[in-house]
């Protein structure tokens, strides 16, 4: 073998024995194929070769139930609005992009009772309101089927201060599940909440839940 038989990417050594690669581009690598790149494209593997392509997108996984649609709570199948019961959420087209998550509704009423999440970390926003028969309040939070809390407890009503002074009127939560869990928006405390028959569309129009999977 002699040095003048050695080339790299068809480049010969210079007089000092160095092969200068500065004229090469990443597309000159044998297993990389570059086709007219555009700004912000990246190199990715397509299963056979490395190619230039738009960056593989980050998929945001989330659930949205409740978008202000009108439906009477008497259609929800709920038996009461007492503490320990679900506050059901109405949505004719709920969004669920969380892989492995499921939503459970009452019959095919579009009134959602609970949701099941796979292991992971989740951020939660929720809000609610109901009709009252007299000065009162209702408190609710996310609770799993083992009674573990998965969010703060929020309270609304003109007598909310009788339950918690200065409480939040909206639910937030950030929690980690090591295994799959079924969770519901549960009423924890109630005072003078009106009957199911008298709720009309208030609950369907005012209750929502947003859950986002986070890293």
């Amino acid at each position, binding site marked *: 073998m002699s040095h003048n038989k050695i080339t790299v990417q068809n480049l010969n*050594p210079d007089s000092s024995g160095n092969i200068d690669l500065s004229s090469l581009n*990443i597309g*000159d690598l044998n297993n990389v194929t570059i086709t007219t790149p555009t700004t*912000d494209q990246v190199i990715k593997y397509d299963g056979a070769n490395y190619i230039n392509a738009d960056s593989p997108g980050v998929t*945001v996984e*989330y659930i949205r139930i409740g*978008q202000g649609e009108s439906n009477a709570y008497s259609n929800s199948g709920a038996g009461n609005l007492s503490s320990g019961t679900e506050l059901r959420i109405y949505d004719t087209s709920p969004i669920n992009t969380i892989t492995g998550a499921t939503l459970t509704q009452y019959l095919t009423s579009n009134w959602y009772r609970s949701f099941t999440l796979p292991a992971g970390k989740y951020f939660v926003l929720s*809000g*609610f309101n109901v009709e009252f028969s007299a000065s009162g309040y209702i408190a609710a939070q996310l609770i799993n089927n083992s009674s573990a809390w998965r969010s703060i407890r929020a309270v609304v009503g003109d007598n909310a201060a009788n339950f918690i002074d200065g409480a939040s009127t909206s639910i937030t939560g950030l929690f980690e599940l090591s295994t799959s869990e079924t969770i519901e928006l549960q009423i924890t405390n109630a005072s003078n909440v009106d009957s199911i028959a008298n709720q009309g569309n208030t609950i369907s129009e005012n209750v929502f839940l947003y859950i986002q999977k986070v890293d």
Partner: protein
Amino acid sequence: MSHNKLSIDNQEVSNVGNIPINLSSYISETTPSNNQVIKFDGVNWINSDSPAGTGFKAKASVFLNETAIFGGSGSYSIGNYLMIQKAGSRTNKIEDVDVTLNPATATNTIKSNSNWLESIDIPAGTFLCICTLAIENGDMKARWESDSGGFSHYVHVYANNNTLSSSLIVGVLNTTVANTVRIVVKDQSTASGLIDDGDHRALSVHILKLG
């Protein structure tokens, strides 16, 4: 020159006869950091943070700068868009390049005033829209709407009882075309007025692009 003087990109032959070739020979590399990718910057292939980002992109946000002091006048009617102070010195503000905070007009809300916004233009995509509603006097039932109609639940807030309802309005809008979003007054018993700096401290809007 002898063969043992051979080098590639000034990397010499190792004691086992190998010449390693680094990626930096093929790209315009600066000191790399964890999780960077190789991307094209329009001219060169470079190492950089991934253009994919976090999948949670801030598009618009407005809430009051704590030092702002101003008054407000005029009252809302049903169907009006909520006015939110957007003057540069008065607000903490994010307005991405493909988003526009549209100035208030008497056609859609209480009055025309370029220091206040009445709606936000957004491009196509899926957006998480968040508003913490605050009012001055009276009451207001409101929700997020786009050019295609409502896309959130309602809240009904009362100036004299801030626990009567949640004031958090959250909607997810998936739009295939450019759109305009706003908070719309849907009902009221007693008209609420344009808020001053005090109440405005609890008012905010945030729009984040998902994915």
